[in-house]
């Protein structure tokens, strides 16, 4: 949706309404516009969002009421029922279609029912928020939100609806309550927002979508290519998924900043991590921290000895894999990351540091992405087998280039964009700051010159327009 030609128009209308209408209406403006946004993508997704928001709103109030009346048992039962219902809804949408297909039951179920079982937009993200919120209300960490406009925004705010980040109520809701204090001309806010969005669009349209075209061909007909090209395909997909998701997150953060809302940072130069634990502190931060707080720590975390820590780690990553999609390949991806993390814990327990940690971590993560990218576990294994055994066929490279429709200019653009993203991530990692903030720190002339280069690059080298259908944001389907 962010790459749709209609999005700037939609955003422009929401900004005008937000700042022109009475300040007390602002949560309502954001919520209603978010529902328009969701309904435009899929009317059924809007119904699911609306029903979920209302039920969670009511359930949290009831849990809090029971707790305040001293009915701890009742409060606990209500919390368990509500969170189980969320997990049930999530699993139903995530797995029913998968099992129907696996068991060959498509012909016995009507198309209308199958259509209704397609994962609604953003469900995984706002249901995780709902579970976290219900648990926090039950534990008394956060009060139940009485104002539906506010809680509705927490679940449905359009900037983060499709692919997160997974926000926490205690950082998001206070900002919604203070929307009336946001001024259009607040010093630097719009400039920061613009920088985030511009960099996000660059990552998505110039880098991710360009690599997506090649990665799709390499993954789609892997039998045709030799080992080197399949390794390149693995690397391309690794960078694609990062630029796609981080690009989306930057656009989301930028959009939210226009309205004075700070979303959590989802990425912090993840491929600059020198071990897998560090990688997960830098990749999809809102998900990994959610899993840590609501699953890993309640399971005992690392407080019950090394063995339990390893088991908990494996559980976390298996759940993480299952959250990302239905299929053994996602479980294999999660399992692999679990094994990486356990190994890393054992190595670090012996306080051994590994030479070339960054490179090893990058290729370990890239290897795991192959399971993530494949259509099935069997396909992933076949692809990996081919990659390891095909050997080099230099004499066929011209044919490979033709198959991938890679011309000289295109190769140069790919090389420059990968080097650019890599170098800037390295720079940001060293300075401990994200790129848009780094750009903001520059002098006006330098900053505007960077804006200029980014806009022109997106204009010319962005992948958009007819004959080409922008790759959906990869994380939209989770």
């Amino acid at each position, binding site marked *: 949706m962010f790459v749709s030609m209609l999005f700037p128009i939609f955003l422009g209308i929401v900004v005008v309404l937000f700042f022109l209408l009475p300040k007390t209406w602002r949560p309502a403006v954001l919520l209603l516009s978010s529902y328009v946004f969701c309904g435009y993508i899929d009317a059924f997704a809007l119904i699911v969002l609306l029903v979920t928001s209302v039920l969670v709103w009511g359930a949290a109030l009831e849990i809090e009421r029971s707790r305040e009346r001293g009915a701890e048992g009742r409060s606990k039962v209500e919390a368990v029922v509500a969170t189980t219902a969320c997990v049930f809804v999530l699993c139903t949408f995530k797995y029913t279609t998968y099992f129907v297909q696996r068991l060959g039951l498509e012909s016995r179920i009507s198309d209308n029912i199958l259509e209704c079982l397609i994962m609604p937009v953003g469900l995984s993200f706002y249901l995780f928020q709902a579970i976290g919120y219900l648990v926090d209300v039950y534990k008394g960490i956060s009060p139940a939100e009485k104002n539906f406009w506010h809680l509705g925004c927490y679940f449905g705010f359009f900037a983060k609806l499709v692919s997160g980040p997974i926000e926490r109520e205690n950082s998001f809701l206070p900002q919604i309550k203070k929307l009336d204090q946001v001024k259009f001309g607040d010093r630097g806010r719009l400039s920061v927002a613009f920088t985030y969005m511009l960099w996000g669009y660059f990552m998505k349209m110039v880098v991710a979508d360009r690599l997506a075209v090649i990665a799709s061909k390499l993954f789609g007909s892997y039998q045709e290519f030799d080992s080197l090209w399949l390794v390149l395909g693995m690397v391309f997909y690794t960078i694609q998924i990062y630029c796609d998701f981080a690009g989306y997150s930057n656009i989301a953060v930028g959009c939210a900043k226009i309205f004075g809302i700070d979303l959590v940072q989802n990425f912090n130069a993840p491929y600059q991590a020198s071990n897998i634990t560090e990688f997960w502190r830098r990749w999809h931060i809102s998900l990994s921290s959610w899993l840590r707080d609501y699953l890993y720590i309640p399971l005992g975390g690392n407080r019950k000895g090394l063995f339990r820590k390893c088991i908990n780690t494996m559980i976390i990553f298996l759940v993480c894999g299952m959250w990302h999609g239905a299929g053994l390949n996602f479980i294999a991806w999660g399992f692999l990351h679990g094994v990486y993390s356990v190994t890393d814990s054992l190595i670090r327990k012996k306080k051994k540091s590994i030479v070339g940690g960054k490179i090893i971590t990058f290729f370990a993560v890239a290897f795991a992405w192959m399971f993530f990218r494949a259509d099935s576990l069997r396909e992933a294994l076949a692809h990996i087998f081919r990659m390891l055994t095909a050997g080099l066929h230099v004499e066929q490279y011209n044919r490979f280039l033709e198959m991938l429709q890679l011309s000289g200019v295109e190769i140069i653009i790919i090389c420059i964009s990968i080097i650019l993203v890599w170098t800037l991530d390295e720079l940001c990692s060293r300075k401990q700051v994200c790129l848009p903030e780094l750009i903001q720190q520059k002098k006006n002339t330098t900053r505007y010159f960077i804006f*200029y280069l980014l806009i022109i690059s997106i*204009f010319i080298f962005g992948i958009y327009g007819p004959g080409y259908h922008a790759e959906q944001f990869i994380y939209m389907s989770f």
Partner: protein
Amino acid sequence: MKKPLVKKNLIRISFLLLLVITIYFISRIFSVKSTHGIDQQAGLYWQPENSIDVMMMGTSHIHCNVNTGLLWEKYGITSYDYSGAEQPLWMTYFYLKELYKYQSPKVIVLDVYAPARYKEDYQYYWISENIYGMNFSFNKLEMLLVSVEPKQLSQYFPSFAIYHSRYDDLEEEDFENFFWDGNQKEAFKGYTPYWNARPQVRPEISEEMADGLTSKSEKYLHKIIEYTKSKGSELVLIASPYVITDEDKMTYNKIEEIAKQEDITFIDYNEYYDEMGLDFEQDFNDDSHLNYWGSVKFTDYLASYLNSYDSIPDRRGMEGYESWDDNVRLIYEELQSYEDGTLVNWEE
């Protein structure tokens, strides 16, 4: 306190200016160039204002068959082939609205081959040729909304989204599209002759029924008639010579009926093959288009009709019309290249 703000605003203005200028240059370079309609459409903007007396409109039957150089050289008529491949009447209507922003022609000659041959309400095959040369305006948006189904709109708008990825296909010609190339651009008057000679079977037409004009075409034909009347221009409907069919003729009969009701002229030049001296062995490029030599004969015959209008002056030798001399020179250069065997980029 004020100084930093002034400096900041100066940087902002410089940034916007630099951005606009860069986008202008890359748009000029990257825009699609094509002699099947885009160049004719874009070429209008290079013409001196209010210099064109006869605007030739319609399909490729115009820019392949009407020799603007001959009209100037022999009759002193300033004309321009403002047409596009298979252009339907609803697009012609918005072309008309566009051209009156810059020109006030005395006569509009409109070829009605498209409504006779193509009956769909949305015609996509050559539509790009009729879109990408037009500057952005609400008129263009309206044209798109009428010509393209809503779900297809993003396939054609905005134009830059379509041609921005041409960075790998740029040619020398793409870098000759700036204001300093104005004289060269002005000399192009839309005429793009074909150079093949392919024998055709002379059609024998007996159709007398009047029918086959779709309601969308009829609606826009009436709008065109009304619009040209409101602008004070004479509208002349024509069917230029080609290998006509009975089905086409049926639609021409219907158009002729409408023309009579509206008191405007309709001429089917397929009834005057002998009068204009068309040779079906030598004068056709294909069954739909004349070649250069056929276009010379047809244009000459058309000019004899146009000459009957007192409102069309002989402008030879007048100041401000030198670009038509250049147009004649360009056409002769192309003819010379053909005769020398050095003509490039023509479809054999």
